[in-house]
């Protein structure tokens, strides 16, 4: 069988499928380019989540990252988290809660125009170490902090 012809046919077919779905509004172009990292978010182990999202679970502790969380969270369903960093060339900022059933909380892909600041609120099942990993110029840097939770937020 003509292998080239096969792959040519296959490519045209899938190519037109994507074009059709884009045209019909099923997929927006941004979604085709940056798919939601399902495996990393569904993973129940911290290591798998980090490797799945960032390619490695080894990061360098950096004092240039500020991770602001409360020391004691009375309500684990709403824990404010603020990450700021002065590192140059930040590509992604992600936050992990090590004791959660699904450790990966949030991950932001930044462009050159966004400043390296991310503030949100997360749920913590119980007292947990919160780790933020920042990817800057292809390298991973991190900072962590333990948040004591007096009332759990994840299922319980």
């Amino acid at each position, binding site marked *: 069988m003509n292998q080239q012809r096969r792959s040519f046919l296959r490519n045209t077919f899938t190519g037109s499928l994507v074009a059709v779905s884009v045209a019909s509004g099923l997929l927006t172009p*941004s*979604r085709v380019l*940056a798919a*939601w*990292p399902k495996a990393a*978010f569904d993973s129940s182990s911290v290591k798998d989540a980090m490797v799945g999202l960032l390619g490695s679970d080894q990061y360098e502790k950096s004092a240039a990252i500020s991770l602001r969380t409360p020391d004691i969270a009375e309500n684990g*369903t*709403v*824990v*404010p988290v*603020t990450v700021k960093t002065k590192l140059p060339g930040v590509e992604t900022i992600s936050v992990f*809660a090590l004791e*959660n*059933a*699904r*450790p*990966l*909380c*949030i*991950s*932001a*892909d*930044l*462009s050159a*125009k*966004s*400043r390296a*600041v*991310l*503030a*949100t*609120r*997360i*749920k*913590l099942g119980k007292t947990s170490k919160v780790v933020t990993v920042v990817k800057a110029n292809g390298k991973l840097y991190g900072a962590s902090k333990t948040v004591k939770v007096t009332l759990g*937020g*994840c*299922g319980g």
Partner: protein
Amino acid sequence: MAKKKLKVRASAKKGYAVIKAILFHPMETGLRKSKETGEVIPAHYIQEVSIKHNDEQVMMVNMGIAVSKNPYLSVEIAGAAKGDTISIGWLDNLGEEASTEVKIR
């Protein structure tokens, strides 16, 4: 009118703009059980939030189930000035989406 799905405020600072958004969403984890029936409540949560400045995508935030109900998000965009348009849209795991546009004040 349908219930408001997101609320955004953008304010200009020196050389950048601060965007603050509240996305109204239940953020069900899929791990929780209903108190009355004991059945697992199916997962329903926002997965992607895109932030655009004058139609240029500047940020893509991926969320998991561990983000709180009615997520709050605050980010800063460099080079954005008063009068520019910021649009924010979210998409959840059931394919629902919502978006809004605001002018930087």
